[in-house]
């Protein structure tokens, strides 16, 4: 019987994700298989019990959506000012393969529990993007995956498309490579974001992250930035007019998912407790950046260590492990609000510092999140052939709020007392005349 050269994987979002044999080799590599043991949403499952999905299935989803986008934007009609950047049929076929493999590989460098505290848990100059690059370029992946492909691809092309200019600042991108990377990592229409919103929403059991991605993808186009006469002709991902409402839905979905799920205070404090534990447990308080060590370090190893530390009162990370395993997380003392912001833009920092003085730094934690990306402006191809700016055509895009959160947490035993203390001292703390200029 002939060897099967088409493979399919069932997926709760995209139903079937299909791969050829070369792509299957990438999927079966130890580097990709490691992602089966990296939770997409860290310890969010302690708040939303269904959110136990992993980076592995997300990577498959990103590959599926990236392909759909590629097929739409390279098919007619192509805007006149863009025609020159689309490669010929053979090269298109090559880049489609690169895009699919880059999509599979884009998250290889994530730390256990997809931990976001990379500046504290990795040596200076490292982040998950750099780790991803190192893994894709590693001798192991080269000899055991890339060199075994029947149709070869250039490793550097995969790096560029997987990480984009933001993750590969040292590389120079041409316009076509920029567009391809934008398909995966793009600020507005990147499929990384589309897939995680849909997938996280499904698994967390909340409806906020849903939007009509079928319609959105069908209306994507490569367009010049557009606008007025003296505007740039640089190509970027934009939309046909008919897709504006699905783009609005995407950006609102993003806002709701961040404000309701990703910035849920209990999820955030569990992340902090996990970071505190990891810093006690890891050698030199950091993860190793050696590819071999990285591949051996997954959520399984961390969970085993957490359980061990929880039952060993002499373990240096005991107290932090116990807060996670026994659900004894710190509780909310303060969260950002507009009134305090008007008085002091650094109100949360002032309250955190005052609480540390009052109760000791071991019993207080702070957390800050500021939205990154998610721009509402993109070009739109109107029915009369003009290219206009999204925000000039939509009543709602400019109204999508920026996601921002500031929290101060306190040991749960101290919370009742600390809440009273804060009520009595809040105004004094945030109106402090302390000089902040150097």
């Amino acid at each position, binding site marked *: 019987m002939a060897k099967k050269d088409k493979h399919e994987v069932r997926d709760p979002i995209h139903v079937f994700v299909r791969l050829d044999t070369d792509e299957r080799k990438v999927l079966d590599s130890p580097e990709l298989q490691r992602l089966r043991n990296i939770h997409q949403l860290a310890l969010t499952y302690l708040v939303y019990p269904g959110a136990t999905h992993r980076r592995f299935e997300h990577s498959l989803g990103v590959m599926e959506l990236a392909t759909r986008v590629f097929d739409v934007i390279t098919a007619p009609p192509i805007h006149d000012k863009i025609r020159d950047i689309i490669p010929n049929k053979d090269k298109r076929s090559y880049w489609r393969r690169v895009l699919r493999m880059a999509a599979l590989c884009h998250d290889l460098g994530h730390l256990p529990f997809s931990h976001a505290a990379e500046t504290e848990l990795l040596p200076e100059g490292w982040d998950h993007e750099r780790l991803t690059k190192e893994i894709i370029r590693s001798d192991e992946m080269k000899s055991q995956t890339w060199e075994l492909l029947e149709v070869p691809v250039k490793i550097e092309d995969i790096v560029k498309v997987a990480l984009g200019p933001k993750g590969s600042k040292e590389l120079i991108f041409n316009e076509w490579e920029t567009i391809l990377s934008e398909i995966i990592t793009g600020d507005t229409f990147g499929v990384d974001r589309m897939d995680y919103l849909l997938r996280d929403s499904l698994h967390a059991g909340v409806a906020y992250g849903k939007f009509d991605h079928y319609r959105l993808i069908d209306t994507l186009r490569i367009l010049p930035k557009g606008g007025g006469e003296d*505007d740039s002709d*640089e190509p970027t991902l934009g939309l046909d007019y008919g897709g504006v409402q699905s783009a609005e839905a995407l950006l609102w979905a993003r806002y709701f998912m961040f404000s309701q799920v990703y910035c849920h205070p209990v999820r955030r404090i569990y992340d902090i407790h996990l970071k505190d534990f990891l810093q006690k447990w890891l050698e030199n308080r950091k993860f190793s950046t050696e590819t071999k060590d990285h591949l051996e370090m997954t959520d399984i190893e961390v969970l085993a260590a957490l359980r061990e530390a929880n039952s060993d009162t002499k373990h240096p990370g005991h107290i932090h492990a116990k807060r996670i395993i026994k659900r004894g997380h710190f509780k909310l003392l303060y969260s950002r609000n507009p009134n305090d912001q008007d008085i002091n833009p650094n109100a949360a920092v002032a309250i955190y510092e005052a609480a540390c003085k009052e109760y000791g730094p071991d019993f207080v934690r702070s957390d800050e999140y500021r*939205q*990154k990306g998610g*721009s509402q402006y993109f070009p739109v191809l109107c029915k009369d052939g003009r290219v206009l*700016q999204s925000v000039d055509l939509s009543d709602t895009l400019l109204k999508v709020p920026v996601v*921002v959160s500031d929290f101060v947490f306190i040991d749960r035993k101290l919370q009742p007392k600390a809440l009273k203390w804060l009520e009595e001292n809040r105004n004094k703390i945030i109106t402090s005349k302390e000089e902040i200029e150097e």
Partner: protein
Amino acid sequence: MKRLQRSAVILSLVEELLQRDSWCGETHIQKATYFLQELLRVPLGFDFILYKHGPFSFDLSDELMAMRADNMVQLKSRPPYGPSIIPGPNSERLKQLFPITLQKYKERVEFVAKELGSFGVADLERTATALYVTLKDTTLGDDKIEERALLINKLKPHISIENARLSLENGKEIREKAKSLVGIG
């Protein structure tokens, strides 16, 4: 520079650009900030790469988003070039926190706004890319306009060689004028 201190400098740049009738969209602020940091040596600490319409900083883009969240700036729709960024309700409060910093960089901010305030996006893209290419490759002397124009056209094919040449000439003039302000010869 601390985050809010940096935000105050950006806010002052926004105000100056608006005073010079700039459209003051994100692209305008990105390119003007690039000039302010790289040419006028204001230590803002942004990491610029060649990306959207020339030099672009993802950190600056995030910073503008954070400033919107803190009501220091806000968006105003102004067809046909997309939204302008204008001071928000908390802008005065921010400026009150950093009078020394704002005074220190006032002249440089005014210089950038004066030189770039009247530019549209395409002009800004060409001029900022010309400066980026010039500062990145110091091995080419100032007289190597032709080589640099070819390089700009290679990096950004939608910028013609002729337009690249004009932008390099223009950029050279701006650099000359900036020298007295930052004390370089």
